[in-house]
């Protein structure tokens, strides 16, 4: 998924392959619409290995085309989506997955967000308790000697 934004940058990649941006081509499409839509779903989760940050569904690189055809071949053979993905991962490594698997080495990646949310909620709760406690103890103590003196001074001034 490689386009966009700070585009400034694109500038230096002078050696873009001279091809068009067609991605999925008409001749690849399967006759069975159900199977084709499964193929598209799978394609969106697989990374094009030569073009950095694009899914094979979007990419026009020859390798991406090979992968798209491969996905469709496996589907025709009757494999499930998971089997197809497993086959591709076995061949090309986990790098090919745009959605990383949940495992030890990606544990932090997946749990960090919910964990941070919980921590944030806890901090919110704590600081609320703290503020409430503060306010209460201040109210219970009443004004300190110094504060009373200041108050008197202010009252005199007006």
């Amino acid at each position: 998924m490689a386009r966009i934004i700070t585009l400034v940058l694109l500038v230096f990649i002078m050696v873009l392959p001279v091809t068009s941006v067609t991605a999925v081509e008409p001749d690849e499409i399967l006759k069975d619409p159900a199977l084709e839509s499964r193929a598209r779903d799978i394609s969106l989760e697989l990374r094009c290995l030569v073009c950095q940050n694009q899914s094979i569904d979007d990419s026009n690189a020859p390798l991406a085309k090979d992968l798209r055809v491969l996905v469709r071949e496996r589907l025709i053979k009757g494999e499930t989506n998971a089997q197809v993905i497993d086959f591709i991962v076995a061949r090309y490594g986990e790098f090919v997955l745009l959605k990383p698997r949940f495992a030890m080495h990606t544990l932090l990646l997946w749990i960090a967000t919910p964990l941070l949310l919980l921590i944030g909620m806890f901090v919110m709760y704590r600081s609320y308790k703290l503020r409430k406690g503060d306010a209460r103890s201040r109210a219970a103590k009443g004004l300190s000697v110094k504060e009373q003196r200041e108050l008197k001074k202010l009252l005199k001034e007006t």
Partner: protein
Amino acid sequence: MIAEIGHFSLILALGVALAQTILPIWGAQQRDNTLMRIGAPAAQAQFCLLLLAFFGLMIAYVTSDFSLLNVFQNSHSAKPLLYKISGVWGNHEGSMLLWVLILALFGCAVAMFGRNLPPDLKANVLGVQGSISVAFLTFIVTTSNPFTRIDPAPFEGQGLNPILQDPALSFHPPFLYMGYVGFSMAFSFAVAALITGRVDPAWARWVRPWTLAAWMCLTLGIAMGSWWAYYELGWGGWWFWDPVENASFMPWLAGTALLHTALVMEKRDSLKVWTILLAILTFSLSLMGTFLVRSGVLTSVHAFAVDPERGVFILGIMVIFIGGALALFASRAQVLRQGGIFAPVSREGALVLNNLLISTACAAVFIGTLYPMALEAVTGAKISVGPPFFNATFGPLMVPLLIAMPFGPFLAWKRGDILGASQRLSVAAIVTMLVIIAAYAFSGSGPWLAPLGLGLGIWVIAGALSEIAFRVKMFKAPWDEVFRRLRNLPRAAYGTTTAHIGIGVMVLGIVATTTWQSEKILSLKPGQSASIAGYELKYMGVEPHKGANYSEQIALLVVSRGGEEVTRLFPSKRLYVAPKTATTEAGIHAAWTGDLYSVLGDELKDGAFAFRLYFNPLVRFIWIGTLIMFFGGLMSLTDRRLRVGAPKPARVGVRPAAAE
């Protein structure tokens, strides 16, 4: 000669920035007014010098002076004038120069408009701002000098990447940088406040307009990039969770959170610690974005500088500024004791929830962007983190945020009444329900979540409108009373409502186009037709054509609906001369219901051409929404009470708080 003047100004600006950093801060420590006052003229001088340097480079581009290495590498004499100019920042060296120019512009603005700032705060702010300039100017002069000459000078330049030769893209970087770099203001004020030890509502009153201005520019900058990607890259996508996109999106999220929390600090003198921290973090994310993009650590099309020297330099800058600011924060945070207390259900509470969700969402983007790099550095294992990850982590956080959004403005400061707020939102809730039911009825067997998503967008819009309606007693008071209230409502209130409506409109666009997009991939021979979303497209043939610096093949598609011709689309494929690159230009027909989007593919064996056709429902709402958000910000910015240095309003009566 002009290049030498530019070069000289650049180096002189570094000297001035150095003076701007040391003298005012030292003066503030010594309570020496003369030294403190040096900050303002230094900031102005620095800006003028950088402007001179920038124009020097621009003249070199416009006159195609290929004796400059930078111009030779990034320009071409046959390029249209607009792209000669935008070529100045379309490359590493030039864009860094633009970066410091904008930094100096903000410093100059403090110098000019900050007359009634406490002198020590102003001196420290300018000093901190100057120190950022010093770091980046040193970086430019030592590793990325745009004024390097080559001898002998070549006759022709190598050209600008053709996909960057586009009007929207020409102005995308300046806006993006105005945003990114504008957050340096919040950073400098935060650090200055930590140095002086004073953080009070006046501080927030100062920081908020600057942050808002930066936020607006960033919003527009990101939207332009997304808009460009949509029509230029040729597959109808508008956001790709690319690391470079994320690099600009993270400061936007943090900046959004900062805008909201600064409100609490200004009005209630509360949440100081968090606001200061967020101000530091927002600019830190901008620095990190600069690092990610400029250093080449990303394996993305964008990362072009494969030069580790630069990467290490920016990393150093980043570590010093972020580390320094955070260390200062840690040692001085106890000065910032909390002010006003509030109940969990209150305006403050709602804004805290907003911050919790937005910050967590920002963290999700941060982790998803950096985790693959960190993992590879530590274990050597290579993984990819793509859109499915972000949709799964970022998406769910937006749902409670959008649901809670309309409630916020209805809650009073200190202690709110959730039941009362719900009652006031009942009309919005009914409208939302009706839309959801209608969407289910019309969409039939579509994705079951889509109508709920649409409902979310409607809820945000209706909720924002309800707030205005409630505050002006719409349908409750006589009309002249309503009009009087409408007139008296502060612009900031309209600004909030407008920006929130913008979010709602954007949500509608996102939901509709992601769930109901239709697509056709097919091959067509001249005379053959295809149909999509009720449109009939007849392919007439392909013709060659020659542009200024490219040759292209243009296809003609006659679009009709119900037998009547609607429009003609001309999707094309271009082949640029220098550098040799192919691009596709989509043929797009825009209507309120959505875009008909056509892309010309390769020629197939039997003389037919491959085509990709899309119908993207409501896709324009995404960018219209961001524009509405921008104007919301603009309205707030023109509010008298927010205007920099404006005295507090004497007006009583309509207050921004909902409690009336």
